[in-house]
């Protein structure tokens, strides 16, 4: 027969409860703030560490870092304009290819594919993003580059040579190949986010247009795409950010020439591939700090691009919790 009273049982439970979480509510919030603080400190630390390491170069090279095309470690002259241009060219090629294809894929996945195939196919497209970039680089170098050199680039040169952008000897590796490989790598980003944004458009809007007699394409072009416009723009900008920061695959296929290419068949260098190539070797004066300065430049650009893009995407997809917005 139990001799404990109800109040004794209650206080025992209370004590047990208190022992199990020694944190009171304010303590808990405080702990979370500390955790958040650590996170914030990490972000700041990255910025500060890079700025500190890059400072000697910023002082020595000055604005020449981004206005000069001459990258000459032997004579301690560091101008990264060719790399900035290289980044822009490869990203542009990648976007020209990936945005239409990605959007088409997204529309297909959201609308024009049988319902039960929707998830498996979406997973397949996203698997493209799971392939390590080093595998893409190696495949691009060993399989795609010879095909470019032997078939695609000569054809482009003969068919479109009058445009003046396909001059030079086709050797396979170069900015065009880098752009194409980048397009393949950012396609999943573009497709997945656009698809999520399109799916988030309320069904009644689509069905309403259908009821008014719109063809299935007209529903998409007239109703869905205009509503999803800023989300899709966000997806595109996010994909652009990914393309700018991609390092390993680009290093292996871009040709590593520190000058601005004169044609799409030419070779070049991006900011990321420059760093990957020269970092472990940089012993000349200001070489290492100049490379880190280029890294800082890349960080700032991609931060602006990515941060802005995600703001755009979030404002569209905020309503759907649990949506896999990369």
């Amino acid at each position, binding site marked *: 027969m139990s001799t404990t009273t109800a109040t004794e049982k209650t206080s025992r439970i209370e004590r047990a409860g208190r022992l199990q979480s020694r944190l*009171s509510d304010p303590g808990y919030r405080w702990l979370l703030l500390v955790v958040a603080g650590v996170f914030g400190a*990490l972000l700041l630390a990255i910025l500060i560490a890079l700025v500190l390491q890059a400072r000697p170069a910023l002082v020595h090279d000055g604005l020449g870092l981004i206005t000069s095309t001459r990258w000459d470690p032997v004579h301690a002259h560091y101008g990264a304009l060719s790399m900035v241009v290289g980044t822009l060219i490869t990203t542009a090629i990648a976007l020209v290819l990936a945005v239409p294809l990605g959007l088409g894929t997204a529309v297909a996945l959201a609308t024009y594919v049988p319902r039960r195939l929707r998830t498996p196919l979406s997973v397949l497209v996203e698997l493209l993003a799971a392939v390590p*970039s080093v595998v893409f680089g190696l495949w691009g170098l060993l399989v795609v580059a010879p095909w470019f050199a032997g078939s695609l680039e000569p054809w482009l040169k003969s068919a479109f040579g009058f445009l003046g952008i396909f001059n030079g000897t086709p050797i396979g590796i170069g900015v065009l190949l880098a752009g194409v490989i980048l397009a393949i790598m950012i396609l999943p980003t573009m497709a997945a986010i656009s698809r999520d944004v399109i799916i988030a458009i309320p069904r009644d809007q689509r069905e309403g247009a259908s009821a008014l007699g719109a063809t299935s394409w007209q529903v998409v072009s007239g109703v869905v795409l205009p509503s999803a416009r800023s989300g899709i723009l966000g997806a595109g900008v996010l994909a652009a950010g990914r393309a700018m920061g991609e*390092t390993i695959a680009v290093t292996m296929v871009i040709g590593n020439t520190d000058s601005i290419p004169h044609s799409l068949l030419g070779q070049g260098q991006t900011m990321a591939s420059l760093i990957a190539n020269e970092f472990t070797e940089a012993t000349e004066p200001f070489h290492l700090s100049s490379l880190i300065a280029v890294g800082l430049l890349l960080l700032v650009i991609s*931060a602006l691009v990515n941060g802005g893009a995600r703001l755009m995407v979030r404002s569209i997809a905020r309503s759907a919790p649990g949506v896999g917005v990369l």
Partner: protein
Amino acid sequence: MSSPSLDPGGGRDFEGSFGASDPILSRRAEVQRTAASQLVRRKVTSRVAVFLCRASLVAALVPLVAVLAYTIRRGVSAWSVAFFTHLPTPAGIAGGGVSNAIIGTLIIDFFAALMAVPLGVGVGLFLSQSNGKVAYVLRFGADVLAGIPSIVIGIFAYAVLVVTLKHFSAIAGSFGLAVIMLPTVTRASEVAIRGVPRDVTEAGLALGGHRAHVARRVVLPAALPGVLTGVLLGIARAAGETAPLLFTAIGSQFTSYNVLHPMAAMPLIVYFDGIQAYPDLQKAAWGTALALIVIVFVLSVGGRVLSSRVRRSVG
């Protein structure tokens, strides 16, 4: 252009009956005529557009199939018991393997997860409960972090852990990978925790638990599948990264369990040996690439399957 038999009104043309100049009816007839004539064009456009969209989907899958096929073709011949259990041998000496790289990847990624998951889940918990200014800044910061090129993160890991500890180390590599994993884990945790129905949390609080207790014993377990998805996807992303390891763990020919020293890793084998002239080194590189893809795919698909299960059960 006009085709009287396509009158969608489905009836007689009223013009003749009531008078040829009724403006509404004639306008209606005009609209019907225009619509009829454009119907073919609209249908054709739609067919073409749908075809192009489906073709884009196919085009998107072509590179995936091509890369996989090539990797399987070149990598499968490298797989053998020796491949998974032996250390690498110099070029020309048969019987080598990548056991040190497999162990190295497991160790490095384990420590990366150890660093990223508690911090990521903690920040996710914080973000799920507040919408204030601090939370906004942190969310923006996580998005920025997600976009930082992996090479820049490699430089950061080098500056923080290699220079200060005075030698290359696997832990510096883990640190770099942890930074890369962090945004994925944070985002997934926040979304998963937000997804836990409010009544569950409120029930826990009503039973007298402190917030910390409720969080630990009620909310996190309920959010676990979503959090796990984030962790799996984060590890999948980190496992395939090469750039952060280039100036941190740098690789080794031996098996090492010491995280304060250089360590071999699978992406490094693919990067360094893939372009070597010696055929057996190339074969090893492709075998490693295939193994890496298998690991990353399993983690990614597993994460997605888990997340769709959660979505279905939560509704």
